[in-house]
């Protein structure tokens, strides 16, 4: 290589931008040079398609941008684009995501590394725009990787990570990036945007190998199968999900090396947990009020902490089980519901209970449901949850029911 080719260009530094979480994802699609973006409007996800459309119109991004006639077609088109070897992106929110469910359900078995941004939104009726995690969680069991972010910066970074992990041939599974409606999708903050060259170092080209749907590689995808085929297909998808954990760890390490961000475990973030006795666990932007309360209680000498789950699928039951087993009490905040589930819990609390089961120490777990329909999780809400968790820790027993926080009686 000659000197000119290796010289550092002026653009080789990070630029700071005041952008929303959706815009951060849009910028990431530009950085990874997505080939096909499919769209259908529903808020809060629609902010992503708006920003992408603007980037294309402004000549900053070169991609096929297809506005479908429904979410179902939107996800089908993106799926097919992914099958022919195009790097694809789509997304939706709330019932829009549900309308695409037929396509969503089959994407993992076809091993298509499609990335979707879920702008988390309550499932209406009644008409509601606020964040609630049941939309993404409806696709919890299907072979999609699920990741929750809590800042616009993390939304950008995680989109880069998602392509890297999904397009690894050991994985080839779709990833849903959950971003809380309003608090992330509609709030602008200062984000470090890496140069394209850094991203190129991190993310290789999407290569489907002999799985690519192309005349030079004559294959038929998704023929009719019966009971004599399907179980083996499911096993392959399951194996791919198992591989994903290791691939995420590899990618995270490399991400840190190139971009300088990403401490600790990729699967969850620990906040003031070193000597903590009581911790709360949650996903998404409810981290903001929880971190504020952790600092306030710490000032008063209370040993409290917070564990924020990033990757929900694959679920790091070993890592979380090991970390959580050393505390005195654990409160789990679900911004979702699962009516009739064990202990009337939300989805995350029962995952945590399961993760703790093989541990020698099983501290009391208190399940909380709060922040539904985008209701703010407030500072007093968080204090109440820490109080109730401490009481359970002192009693040494897990309550057998779930506590709804911030609901009017």
């Amino acid at each position, binding site marked *: 290589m000659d000197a000119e080719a290796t010289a550092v260009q002026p653009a080789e530094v990070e630029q700071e931008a*005041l952008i929303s979480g959706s815009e951060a994802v849009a910028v990431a699609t530009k950085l990874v040079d997505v080939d096909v973006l499919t769209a259908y409007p529903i808020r809060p996800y629609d902010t992503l398609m708006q920003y992408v459309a603007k980037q294309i119109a402004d000549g900053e991004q070169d991609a096929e941008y297809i506005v479908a006639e429904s979410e179902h077609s939107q996800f089908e088109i993106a799926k097919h684009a992914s099958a022919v070897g195009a790097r694809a992106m789509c997304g939706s929110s709330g019932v829009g995501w549900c309308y695409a469910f037929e396509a969503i359900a089959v994407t993992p078995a076809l091993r298509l590394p499609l990335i979707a941004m879920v702008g988390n939104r309550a499932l209406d009726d009644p008409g509601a725009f606020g964040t609630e995690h049941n939309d993404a969680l409806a696709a919890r069991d299907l072979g999609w990787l699920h990741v929750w972010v809590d800042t616009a910066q993390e939304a950008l970074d995680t989109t880069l990570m998602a392509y890297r992990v999904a397009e690894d041939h050991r994985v080839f599974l779709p990833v849903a990036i959950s971003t809380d409606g309003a608090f992330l999708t509609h709030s602008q903050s200062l984000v470090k945007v890496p140069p394209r060259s850094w991203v190129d170092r991190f993310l290789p080209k999407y290569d489907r190998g002999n799985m690519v749907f192309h005349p030079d590689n004559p294959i038929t995808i998704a023929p009719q199968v019966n009971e004599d085929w399907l179980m083996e297909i499911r096993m392959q998808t399951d194996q791919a999900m198992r591989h994903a954990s290791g691939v995420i760890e590899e990618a995270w390490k490399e991400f840190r090396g190139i971009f300088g961000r990403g401490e600790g475990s990729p699967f969850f973030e620990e906040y003031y947990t070193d000597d903590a006795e009581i911790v709360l666990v949650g996903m998404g932007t409810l981290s903001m009020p929880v971190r*504020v309360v952790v600092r306030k209680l710490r000032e008063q000498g209370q040993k409290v902490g917070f564990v924020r789950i990033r990757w929900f699928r694959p679920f790091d039951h070993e890592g979380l089980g090991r970390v959580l087993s050393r505390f005195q009490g654990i409160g789990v905040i679900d911004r979702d519901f699962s009516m009739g589930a064990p202990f009337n819990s939300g989805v995350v609390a029962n995952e945590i209970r399961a993760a703790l089961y093989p541990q020698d120490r099983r501290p009391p777990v208190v399940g909380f449901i709060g922040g539904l329909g985008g209701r703010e999780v407030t500072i007093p809400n968080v204090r109440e949850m820490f109080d109730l968790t401490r009481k359970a820790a002192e009693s040494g027993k897990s309550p057998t029911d779930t506590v709804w926080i911030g609901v009017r009686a």
Partner: protein
Amino acid sequence: MGRAVSVEIVYRGIYQKTLAKNISRGVVLAARRDGKIGIAFGRYGDSPERNGVPAKNFAIVAPNQDELELSMAQYEPQETDVTISVDDMLCKGVESWAWYGLQPINQKVKENGILVVTSTLPADEIVKFCHRKPYPYRLAVIPGIPSFSGLWVYKNDHTDVRILGALAKVCPDLVGLDAMLRAVKEEWKDDLKVVSARRSYEQTEIRVVNPDEGNPEIPYSFDLPGWTTMREGVAVDAMVLGEPVTFGDQVGGYRPARNPYFKKFSTRTMRPVVDFDKCVKCTLCWLQCPDSCFDVTPDQTYDVNAEACCGCGVCAAVCPVDACITMVNEAAFTDHKSQWERYKTDKQEYATWLRQVTSQQPERSHGFRYRGQYQEQIAKSRAGSGGEGGGE
């Protein structure tokens, strides 16, 4: 260390959306040049916006991430250091999609906080519209016709940078003038805008508003029910049938039932006024009104219900009679009383009032058409008191 500073921008949906966004982004980008960080966001529940419906944008600036987190993942801050009203008629109170009831414009302004209003009215007149606070706060008026600069095509009249310049003066905790001017120059790349921002900084005057000043009315509100008291199945009471209108011995016509919890009048910047002597009873205003805001009077004429009217002007547009329905600047009114009852009480007095009030035409800025326009507008609005311009 320092603390977070919260700025609220109350604006008219769609018409002023880009203006509000420019201001909130401008605040954060300027504060960044002072080494601070911040967030800028809209009031999520306000969207999808409708023309003229009051809406909110926010900017929160903090010295560090810990201080900023206290204000993140929220729809709006609990209280504001600065509230900006980019249309003076919003000072009468705001009702949005996002909540129930009427919020005073200064609801979130903290003690000794500041309300910034763009208006051609004197500060003393604006104070009368604003609801009383239990503590003193400050008011700054930036002279100017309300800027309805648009959403899709933003017709700039420098209202955005004029407000940003004033902010550096009225809230130095937020951002210093140098950082603000640098942000204006670098974000808009327009030297004239820098001049406008600087002049606004120099000319902005502040007046203290005491607890005994302002509108004493208690704004209407709404108590949200709990899950044990709510009807099940996501059902709410629908509108019942209306009833006849009564005035003295006269009973007749029809007044539709109206939603007591969502009145819509704070959307209005101009109000229809009816000359009942000219009405030919054609029914067009009543038929075309998108908000069913006309009562049919026992005379079979049509009376505007000023609580239900959002001032869209369709009635005046479809009325076939010259000067029967006239749109009048909302600033000319202090109540929502029935025009027809006033007319029935004293026709002579009504005729006099009508002549006087219909001369007050609303004026809106839709961008500059020529240099010096702003100075002319200000001079005109202060007729006689001598104009003071500022930038372009």
